[in-house]
């Protein structure tokens, strides 16, 4: 090999590397630009929440308000009286999550580990409810809950939304992957059906249980429509209802409105940062549920 060809090859490899770096930098710039656009509304919410109402629409734009009015936050918190609504949201979301996880685990186990007649039909029927959004049945569901005397009540917000086919699907998937031998061993040792479920299956299934719990917690905490329809008494209202009530009363006090919005966004944001992996994987499977 002559010296000349070696040099050419070397410089060519260098050129390729330079081009790869250029591509990476271009991609990074593009991604940064997109990220800035996507996060701008959130940034603007926090930025506005630290201004006085007089300076909200000032030009040139005040990106970082000076001075920052942090006192807007305690003011927003006490004006809305958030504590009450956080407690209500916690009661409703906690109960729905516990109920849902329990029911989903039971049904998922029954459908995965027993071969009873009609289990396929049952599974299809349960999955079909995924196509039935609350918005379609809101009128009859309202009438049903009214008949039960559950308007303006915690049980009205909890029981009708406690059953969710998504949890069943995920738990069934998990229990299918659980070896039958484990359960067989327990049954041979004389454990009953229920105690096998509680002592063998449930402890093994905790990662799946956690994922279901996080997803249900997230969607229940975020739910606006159902509480909005059946709750007219503010003492039972959840956080999203309180935010909407405040918005319809205070349409033009933007810093306060943005502070209220920021406070209401805190719990789900924290949940996301703690359980990011489960939430993103959950969305991917929710989409893939078919």
């Amino acid at each position, binding site marked *: 090999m002559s010296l000349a060809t070696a040099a050419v090859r070397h410089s060519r490899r260098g050129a390729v590397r330079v081009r790869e770096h250029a591509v*990476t930098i271009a991609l990074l710039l593009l991604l940064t630009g*997109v990220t800035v656009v996507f996060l701008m509304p959130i940034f603007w919410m926090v930025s506005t929440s630290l201004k006085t109402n007089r300076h909200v629409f000032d030009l040139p734009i005040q990106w970082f308000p000076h001075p920052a009015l942090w006192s807007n936050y305690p003011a927003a918190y006490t004006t809305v009286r958030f504590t009450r609504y956080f407690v209500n949201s916690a009661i409703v979301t906690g109960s729905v999550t516990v109920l849902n996880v329990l*029911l989903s685990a039971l049904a998922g186990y029954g459908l995965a580990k027993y*071969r009873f007649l009609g289990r396929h039909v049952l599974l299809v029927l349960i999955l079909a409810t995924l196509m039935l959004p609350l918005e379609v049945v809101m009128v009859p*569901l309202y009438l049903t809950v009214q008949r039960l005397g559950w308007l303006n009540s915690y049980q009205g917000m909890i029981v009708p939304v406690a059953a969710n086919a998504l949890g069943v699907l995920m738990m069934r998937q998990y229990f299918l992957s659980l070896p039958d031998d484990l359960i067989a061993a327990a049954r041979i040792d004389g454990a009953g059906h229920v105690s096998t479920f509680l002592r063998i299956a449930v402890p093994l299934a905790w990662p799946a249980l956690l994922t279901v719990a996080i997803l249900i917690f997230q969607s229940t905490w975020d739910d606006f429509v159902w509480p909005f329809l059946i709750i007219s008494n503010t003492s039972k209202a959840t956080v999203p209802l309180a935010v909407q009530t405040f918005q319809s009363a205070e349409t033009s006090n933007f810093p306060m409105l943005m502070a209220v919005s920021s406070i209401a966004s805190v719990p*789900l944001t924290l949940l996301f940062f703690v359980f990011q992996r489960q939430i993103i994987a959950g969305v*991917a499977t929710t*989409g893939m549920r078919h």
Partner: protein
Amino acid sequence: MRRRWFGPTQPWWGFVFTLPILVLLVGFKFWPMAYAAGLSLTNASLTERAWRFVGVHNYARLARDTTFVGALATTGRYVGATIALSMIIGLGLAVLLNQKIPARGLFRTLIFLPAVVPIVVAPILWQFLFNPYGLVNDALKALGLHPVNWLLSSQGAVEALVVATAWRLTPLCMVIYLAGLQSIPAELYEAAKVDGAGAPRRFRSITLPMLKPTFLVVLVFAITLTVQNFVLALVMTGGGPDNASTTLSLFVYQTGFLGFQMGYASAAAIVMLLIIVAFTMLSLRALRTEEG
């Protein structure tokens, strides 16, 4: 002979385990569903006790109701534009984030954040951004364009709704696409590279065809989510101006809960359900022929 552990003797225990959720699903899903179908054939009202069977009168009335037909058209435009935006930008972002670049985990986390913003906060936020003196118009002015009176013009209100919805939907689509992209075997790309296929060619000949099932999944997901949701329209525009941004689900809410016409609202709800089921079935069939 060893006896089967779960035993043909007691397989009905499986049904016992399924029973609790079944009771709730029957009570709060199947029964309301049947109830809705029944109500849609009556003149039921929230304020009056006596209901009368009216046959398909409500459906005939829907066909003649300009507000309903308008809501149907608005829903078509709103859903079409929203899912087109979310699906295209979501795909672009997923492909970008599937490359070997530094800090892509961080970018994924940050871009996902709009989907974490509470659903009731999103419309409040965008109502503020689309204020006549808001940030969106500031941006337009900076680009030398004319500011728009977004929420008070019939065209602008729908466009504002589309942007707000797509903002929250795009990260969700992106995450589903990413899962699909990561399931494409890396060897395919390696082989194509060896054969001298450039990046655009690899995208067209490997990524797109392999992503077709994911594409259908995202489509159903996005349509279902956008058709049913009325929180954004309710809080952001209230359906205005002059019903210009009233979508199908908002129409159901307004007719049933503000107009007290439960029977008529149920007929509209059934139409909405049929649309969702039709799209789901069509996509499922496309998916099945794809796999089969």
